[in-house]
């Protein structure tokens, strides 16, 4: 939205969980706006995603860099961020989007290892990437961090306690980071999506269908009907909000959660 003045160097972003879904949508928007983007994902398919986005936008080689990284691994995250700084010289934006849905069991039935994995990816991953990014941004004296929360972090439901707790944790992490980094001119905010047209959401609806006796298509229609605006959200919707939060138009917004849910939560 706003070009950096004074030089022609592209702004630099790291997007985690960028192989597909919301992360891909965010990376696509940033690529379209001329950013250099490191696309991190545990799934090697991120290499295909990066190549496709580069071709779509006619970008020069090396502008979109795929990296196969597990965000729950501290050393791997540190190495990846170092590689980004070596390649591009700065880090202007982190979008900590990598996440998994986890078990749909009631809390009393959740497998402990499954709980731990949700926390490792969704919360530890956000912590590790934000921490590495914040260190680089502090040295620069500027930067923007966007974490991906969820409406389930704002408004938990029965069945999905691990996911809800991890996303509520992400929001709290975002507020602490915002307060700690405000003196350095670094803004930190969380985006909380609702029912999004992503693999994670379709997987959840398939699970619901297996329990409810309704078809998958009926579950999709029901999920859509829950949204006052009458549609699922997309990576394009989230990319637009990220572009806004990364711009000077959001220069007084920090420590906040932006709900992007078509009105489903009504708060």
């Amino acid at each position, binding site marked *: *939205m*706003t070009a950096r003045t004074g030089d022609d160097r592209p702004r630099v972003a790291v997007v985690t969980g960028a192989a597909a879904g919301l992360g891909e949508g965010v990376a696509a928007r940033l690529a379209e706006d001329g950013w250099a983007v490191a696309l991190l994902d545990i799934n090697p398919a991120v290499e295909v995603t990066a190549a496709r986005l580069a071709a779509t936008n006619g970008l020069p080689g090396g502008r979109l860099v795929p990296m196969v990284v597990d965000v729950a691994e501290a050393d791997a995250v540190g190495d990846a961020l170092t590689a980004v700084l070596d390649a591009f010289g700065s880090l202007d934006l982190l979008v900590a989007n990598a996440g998994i849905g986890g078990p749909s069991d009631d809390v009393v039935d959740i497998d402990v290892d499954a709980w731990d994995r949700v926390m490792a990816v969704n919360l530890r991953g956000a912590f590790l990437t934000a921490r590495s990014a914040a260190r680089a941004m502090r040295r620069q004296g500027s930067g923007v961090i966007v974490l991906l929360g969820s409406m389930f972090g704002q408004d938990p439901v029965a069945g999905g306690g691990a996911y809800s707790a991890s996303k509520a944790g992400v929001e709290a992490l975002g*507020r602490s980071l*915002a*307060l700690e980094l*405000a*003196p350095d001119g670094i803004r930190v905010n969380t985006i909380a999506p609702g029912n999004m047209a992503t693999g994670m959401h379709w997987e959840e609806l398939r699970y619901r269908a297996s329990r409810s006796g309704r078809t998958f298509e009926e579950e999709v229609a029901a999920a859509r009907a829950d949204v*006052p*605006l*009458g549609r699922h*959200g*997309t990576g394009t*919707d989230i990319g*637009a*909000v990220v*572009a*806004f939060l990364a*711009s*000077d*138009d*959001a*220069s*007084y*917004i*920090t*420590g*906040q959660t*932006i*709900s*992007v*849910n*078509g*009105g489903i*939560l*009504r*708060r």
Partner: protein
Amino acid sequence: MSATAGASVIPGRFAGRHAIVTGAASGIGAAVAGRLVAEGAAVAGLDLDWAGRTHLPGVIRIAVDVRDPASVEGAVAAAVVALGGPPDTLVNAAGVYLVRSLLETTPEAWDDVQAINLRGPFLVSTAAVRAGMGPGVIVNLSSVAAYEGSSGEPSGAYNASKAGVSNLTRQMAAEWAGQGVRVVAVAPGVIDTPMLRMMDDPIAGLAYLDASVPLRRLGTAGEVAAVICFAASAEASYLTGTTIVVDGGLLAE
């Protein structure tokens, strides 16, 4: 603080749009009206008092008392004529601040704050929808005061009115989503506007507020206008029924 902070005009973003902005003669309302014009919208500015306002080029000036249904009805009708059609954008920025403890707040003073800050957005929004708005976007001005109580600077009537605005936003969003009207509230923190000068001791107050904000400065009307314009733009097409807080980190503490 920079006068230009948050003021990076996006040319043509509102080309072809028809906007009504209440409270457009000063403060945040004036900043929004100016930016909408700069980005291509036709803008009708509604305000109680346009006297002495000379530097808002391109804004159609219409007098209104947002407390009064007949005045609102007439002003919205005049705006529809002047804009050449029903509005697709409405920003309810008219508001008044009052620092007074509850025990010192007279019923009349209480009523007047609610009438301007809460009845006003209700009257203007329903008039706009009746006039044919939709698809479109309504942006209401809430406040961080909607979430807080304060003994140091007691403003209970104002706080309650702004909490009402955030709820009114949710209700409008629920009722009007079906006709393609999104409704979003923007809740500013401490912004350097004429309303801030309504504080009892502005000088001491400003220094205190500056130090208590995590970003260590007051916000500008331009920064709030930037967020309002984002909320009103196609970029925010999946946002409705929610409040965006613009407070430099105040509420995060």
